[in-house]
């Protein structure tokens, strides 16, 4: 067995040429994933990447682990079956906004409610890239694309709210260019026992360039992003203008930090479902007046893990009925013999 601690990130790269467009946000995500792999404490042969269809779904070809590039939208279903029979494996689902929120939406919500111990990396670029630029279920209202020349009339999904609505036990948001933040999130997702959904804002520089620029550009990012840190107040903004969030009557407000009493500050607690819900609603389109977009781990909850419950049922069935014998199965309850 090749023990993981002897491996380096490059040991997780394959001999296949990476074929994403130059400048694609996927490169950074691939690099961060490869770089945390040796730190998981899982032997390489026990790691499986399952993807659907879309640009991001080529990912497994570039990971020197077990992997499957499957069909559109179904990675969550395939990974579910795999994890049910092999809970010893570390399973990573690679998917996009079209793959998991449009054609595969059903599988995503059901995986979240069942809570198998797998990690979902949802590359959200708010566009269909592989099919060359149609709007996706996360594209902003009114977006002009090849398939919406008059602008979309589709209200977009809010992935965080959708996940929490489906009782996800872990939700985090990352950004392709925030390499350190992304690595931290990935490690926490791996450590979480249950389904971890990590939404990653990923720039498609060909069909939707700059979709997340307000959150990555130096000039705007401090005032537009909120970095969630456990036990810390929700503070954002520039050195000159520190702003803090507070909650009053179940609504979120922001005010200059120095105007808020310390006991009124909103302290981040990822175990609190109501606060997570409020965080998920910080989703207004970017503007200078909008509340900031949160990044980091929104919510994390320990609850029953599907494959473990399945195992328990198998064990208790054996305890109460004994290990099944094929001969007794064949003969059934009522049988007779003819000489």
């Amino acid at each position: 067995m090749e023990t993981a601690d002897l491996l380096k990130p490059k040991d997780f790269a394959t001999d296949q040429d990476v074929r994403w467009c130059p400048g694609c946000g996927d490169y950074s995500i691939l690099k961060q994933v490869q770089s945390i792999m040796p730190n998981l404490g899982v032997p390489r042969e026990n790691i499986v990447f399952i993807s659907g269809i879309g640009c991001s779904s080529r990912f497994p070809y570039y990971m020197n682990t077990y992997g499957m590039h499957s069909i559109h939208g179904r990675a969550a279903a395939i990974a579910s079956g795999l994890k049910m029979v092999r809970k010893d494996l570390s399973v990573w689902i690679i998917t996009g906004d079209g793959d998991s929120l449009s054609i595969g939406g059903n599988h995503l919500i059901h995986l979240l409610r069942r809570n198998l111990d797998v990690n979902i990396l949802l590359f959200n670029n708010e566009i269909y890239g592989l099919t060359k630029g149609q709007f996706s279920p996360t594209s902003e209202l009114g977006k002009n694309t090849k398939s919406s020349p008059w602008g979309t009339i589709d209200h977009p999904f809010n992935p965080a709210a959708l996940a929490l609505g489906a009782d996800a036990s872990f939700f985090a948001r990352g950004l392709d260019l925030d390499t350190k933040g992304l690595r931290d999130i990935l490690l926490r997702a791996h450590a979480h026992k249950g389904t971890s959904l990590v939404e990653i804002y990923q720039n498609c520089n060909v069909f939707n360039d700059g979709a997340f620029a307000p959150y990555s550009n130096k000039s705007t990012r401090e005032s537009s992003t909120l970095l969630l840190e456990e036990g810390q107040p929700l503070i954002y903004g520039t050195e000159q203008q520190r702003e803090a969030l507070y909650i009053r009557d179940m609504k979120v407000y922001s005010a200059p930090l120095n105007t808020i009493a310390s006991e009124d500050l909103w302290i981040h607690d990822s175990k609190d479902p109501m606060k997570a819900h409020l965080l998920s609603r910080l989703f207004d389109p970017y503007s200078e007046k909008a509340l900031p977009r949160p990044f980091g781990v929104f919510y994390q909850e320990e609850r029953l893990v599907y494959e473990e419950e399945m195992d328990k049922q198998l064990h208790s069935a054996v305890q109460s009925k004994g290990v099944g014998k094929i001969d007794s199965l064949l003969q059934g309850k009522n049988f007779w013999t003819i000489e």
Partner: protein
Amino acid sequence: MNQTIEKATVLFAGDSGDGMQLTGFQFSNTSALHGNDLSTFPDFPAEIRAPIGTIAGVSGFKINFGSVEINTPGGKVDTLVAMNAAALVKFQVDLKANGMIIANSNGFDKRNLRLAGLDESRDLLSEARDAGFLVVDIEISKLTREALKDSGLSTKEQDRSKNMFTLGLIYWLYNREIEPSLLFLKEKFRSKPDLLNANTLVLKTGYHFGETIELFSNRYTVNKASLPSGSYRNIAGNEAIAIGLISASAQAHLDLYYAGYPITPASDILHELSNRKNFGVRSFQAEDEIAAIGAAVGASFAGSLAVTASSGPGIALKTEALGLAFMLETPLVVINVQRGGPSTGLPTKTEQSDLFQAIYGRNGEAPIPVIAARSPKDCFAVAFEACRIAIEHMTPVILLSDGYIANGSEPWRFPKASDLPSIHPNYPKLDAPYLPYQRDERGVRSWAIPGTAGHEYRLGGLEKQDQTGNVSYEPENHQKMVLSRAAKVDEIANHIPPQEIDCGPLEGDVLLIGWGSTYGAIRTAVLNMNKQGISVAHLHIRYLFPFPKNLETHLRNFKTIIIPELNNGQLVKIIREKFLINAIPLNKIKGLPFLSSEIEHAVLERLKEL
């Protein structure tokens, strides 16, 4: 007077809420234990509680049992049990001339006539008498209430036991023991002593009623059939499939993983397997049909024996993932318990109209082996065989059953576990570098299981490079891979038993070819025609794709080939296309199985024309 007869056909019919399925099932089990050969056919509405008392709400259970070989649930009925007017209206046409009607006369009042869509002034039972039927009318509802008047049960609860009266009465009429049903009741109502007592009392009351009241001029005995020696049980098709899958997983030393989504008439496989957790069976009720096959593909990749089942509409949804499994070349068993189509069609009725779907229904060049079960007990052997082919040849396999054999039952001489063959998964050698799409002499790739160090590999639905499995868009490679995958499936023909003639002459004038659940009706028709000196043979195809290699030889030995099918002609088109012969279709598309007399009649008509 006690009269010994060779065989009898009884049809239990009543409202959906009258418990006729249970009554029929109990009678079948007892008859099987009694030693009869038998075949059953439950026929019920799609609605759980169809409008009470109406013809649409009638539920029927037909059983044909005998001391002779029984291959079908029978043709015309000897004894019709009619619990209400609607039941008689629906099934009187199926009675033999002079057949017997045992009627619950309380179910023929004005209200029931009205619900059956008839004029309230009609006297159906007198009309039936005048038509020459032997009508035995008994106030079953009233007598049941009478028997239970001190039980403390509500009238509604009392009425629910009336099927036990009927069962007891029919047990008496056909000289059956009531003990097996008493045992059944004991188990069913273990925690409800008042219901146990009530049902037991009513069952005995029905039996004693037959004994005491001189309503019947005859009582019938159907002796044991001379079946080959061995141990037997009564079995329905879906149950046999479940047992076959579990047995195959044991013989392959693989864990069984089953993913399904509720659908009629396949759900019983899910129920059965969900209750077999102590055999290590992992069953998963998925969010939809696509998720079910997706999860099965994932479990197969992970090294389990993976199975999913559905019926036509669900199989349509699974089609894309089936193509993926084909492309991955990973073992998977997909069961289609066919029902009347297209679209939602006739959920509780039987049909064989998904053969084209099974053989051709995918995008791209994606040949998948297809095998079909011919009877309830045959579902065991075919399920086992589907697993063997899937595992040993690294391919998805489609198993076709249908609603008729899924719910029907017959005695099964079950094997011993030690008699079952071993199944050998094709694992790669550990010491050599792993090439996922390297093929052995049968064209089969090997199955590396995640967790095996040094064998890490990626696979997917994109075209793959030969040997390595890396993505490849090379024109030459694509053609090579398409042909390699097809050759691998064709090669399976070298690993299945040769085709045999089921009965009749090995060569001659007429050959009837069947597949699937028409087996019993065709066999009965052919044996009967042979008795009359008509030269007809029967060939039954289990392996529908690829065909057994010697199939063509048999076809060339006959002048006329007739292919009866419960569809608009599917196998017939495949046979015509493949062998360029003038095979003749014989079709029934009514949601009902063939009667052997229908086949016989059609063949005789055909012979006149020739």
